């Protein structure tokens, strides 16, 4: 009843092409922001931060990054875990080499370094596409993990082969290290996600985004209308890798605190984030958030229900959880191949006419 275009006239092109053209949507968006930044930080505790919010925020950044590459530009990548590792090791090297520089700058620089690596591994996309490109990016995944395991320089010759984040702060608020408060972790990641999601939305609605989508939908026609496939594909790889690198840096520095490359950034991570993108919806920023929320929250939810409410043994619950999630993914993909974002769109279309559909 509130969700109406009627009476909401658009008198200029910028108004017509804004992100939330319907007033109700805009209000809800600001309401979500108000809750996320005004309420949650005051009530968050360690359990909620570590089990739910921080992983969701970080995976959402990675999912947006991968969605730019796979969903918008149509280039399949299975190297996400490897690129996250690049971000993690880059931020580790930067943090230990330049302790006086702000962690925020380190995180952004780590993203930039990952962008460079992403462009190099994106070069094969100029020649191959589809499954073959997926295999080529798989090579990136294995190579990068091997590299960070094999070359001690990357983990500063530590005996365990692990990297661990030293304590760093922004304006006196500790962001990394064991003494970080839940609220600081949450706010730092949430602010970065907000900024990056906004950048991604701007990029995908302008001419850069149209170039990517043109390449995705029909590369020959894209070239004939003047899209240079080289710059379009490589810019998608660069920006996607930047996002993923930032996510990797946060995952290591803020969330884990200490990481071992094969365990934290292995091939499972690549698949996990690809699933988030597919379940959430290819070619949708909201879909990336929804997919990340789905795959982060579902295991937590199931565990609470099975162990907490039904009293099952933990190991049995863990196995059943895998079965349920796997099943749900399959059901989901059959029922709605375009993901949660498409369900959301359909719901909104219905809502526009509700309660008088005729």
């Amino acid at each position, binding site marked *: 009843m509130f969700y109406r275009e009627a009476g909401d006239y658009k008198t200029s092109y910028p108004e017509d092409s804004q992100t939330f053209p319907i007033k109700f949507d805009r209000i809800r968006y600001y309401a979500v922001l108000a809750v996320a930044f005004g309420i949650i930080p005051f009530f968050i505790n360690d359990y909620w931060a570590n089990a739910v919010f921080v992983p969701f925020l970080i995976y959402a950044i990675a999912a947006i990054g991968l969605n730019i590459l796979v969903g918008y530009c149509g280039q399949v990548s299975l190297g996400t875990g490897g690129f996250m590792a690049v971000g993690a090791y880059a931020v580790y090297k930067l943090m230990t080499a330049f302790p006086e520089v702000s962690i925020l700058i380190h995180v952004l620089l780590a993203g930039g370094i990952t962008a460079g690596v992403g462009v190099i591994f994106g070069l094969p996309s100029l020649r191959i596409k589809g499954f073959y490109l997926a295999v080529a990016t798989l090579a990136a995944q294995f190579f990068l993990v091997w590299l960070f395991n094999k070359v001690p320089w990357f983990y500063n010759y530590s005996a365990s082969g692990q990297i661990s984040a030293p304590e760093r702060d922004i304006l006196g608020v500790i962001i990394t290290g064991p003494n970080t408060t839940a609220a600081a972790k949450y706010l730092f990641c949430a602010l970065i996600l907000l900024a990056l999601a906004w950048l991604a939305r*701007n990029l995908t609605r*302008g001419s850069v985004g*149209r170039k990517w*989508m*043109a390449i995705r939908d029909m590369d*020959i026609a894209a070239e004939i*209308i*003047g*899209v240079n496939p080289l710059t379009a594909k490589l810019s998608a790889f660069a*920006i996607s890798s930047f996002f993923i690198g930032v996510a990797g840096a946060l995952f290591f520095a803020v969330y884990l605190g200490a990481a071992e490359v094969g365990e934290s950034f292995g091939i499972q991570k690549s698949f996990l984030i690809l699933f988030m993108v597919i379940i959430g919806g290819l070619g949708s920023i909201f879909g990336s958030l929804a997919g990340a929320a789905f795959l982060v929250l579902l295991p937590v939810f199931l565990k609470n229900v099975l162990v907490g409410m039904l009293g099952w043994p933990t190991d049995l619950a863990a196995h059943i959880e895998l079965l349920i999630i796997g099943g749900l993914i399959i059901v989901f993909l059959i029922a709605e191949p375009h993901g949660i974002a498409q369900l959301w769109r359909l719901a909104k279309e219905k809502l526009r006419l509700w309660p008088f559909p005729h």
Partner: protein
Amino acid sequence: MNMQNPDGYTTADGRQIGGVMMEMKNITLRFGGVAAITDISFDIREGEIRAIIGPNGAGKSSMLNVISGFYVPQEGEVWFRGAKRPPMKPYQVAGMGIARTFQNIALFEGMSVLDNIMTGRLTQMKSGLLAQAMWWGRAQAEETAHREKVEKVIDFLEIQHIRKTPVGRLPYGLKKRVELARALAAEPKLLLLDEPMAGMNVEEKEDMSRFILDVNDEFGTTIALIEHDMGVVMDLSDRVVVMDYGKKIGDGTPDEVRNNQAVIDAYLGVSHDE
């Protein structure tokens, strides 16, 4: 009517045609041992509607692909506005002001009609990655300016009502029109149409013919088109090139071509009994 006049000529309906815009000189295109085009020369003049016709497999689409840069001919030269064109990638050709449509529609199915047509403006959009990421005034102003141009094309082709519809949901005839809109949005100097009326019913053909004539008339766009419907070709075009088995067998006004014995033979077949 003197069509060899370098300064142009006046058509039967009184339109003034200018000098040579594009000249194909002795083009030969081979795929391995198969010659798709053999030693073909013709020109396209400023403001002209030029048709390329011929039976199936004559090499018409290959010719269009040579013009738009998909194929690089083994022999021959392409001259555009008085300069020889070096071998170019298709996106560079697009930057020169040559737009085209495809025989089987090549729209971006995942995008809305509006976004599809906006892609036609990509060669003119200059704001950088960073400006767009921040959606600074410049990027936004550019977007709005181009949107205005695109809206004019949308008005012109009478597709306002489907502006926000995803292209995948449109019927065939409208898709053809959207594809024409995308090509027009680039404000091309030369517009290449590969069978713009293939698979259309009479009404849609009439609409499309009207649009082609209007484009030529209002924007002064030079048009080169491939078409199988002879009625349409003879009505629309100022001059016609006829191809058969990769060779040029006729070139001239519709009337000249209609009475050309080689053309009649190619279309109707020749009896070998006599």
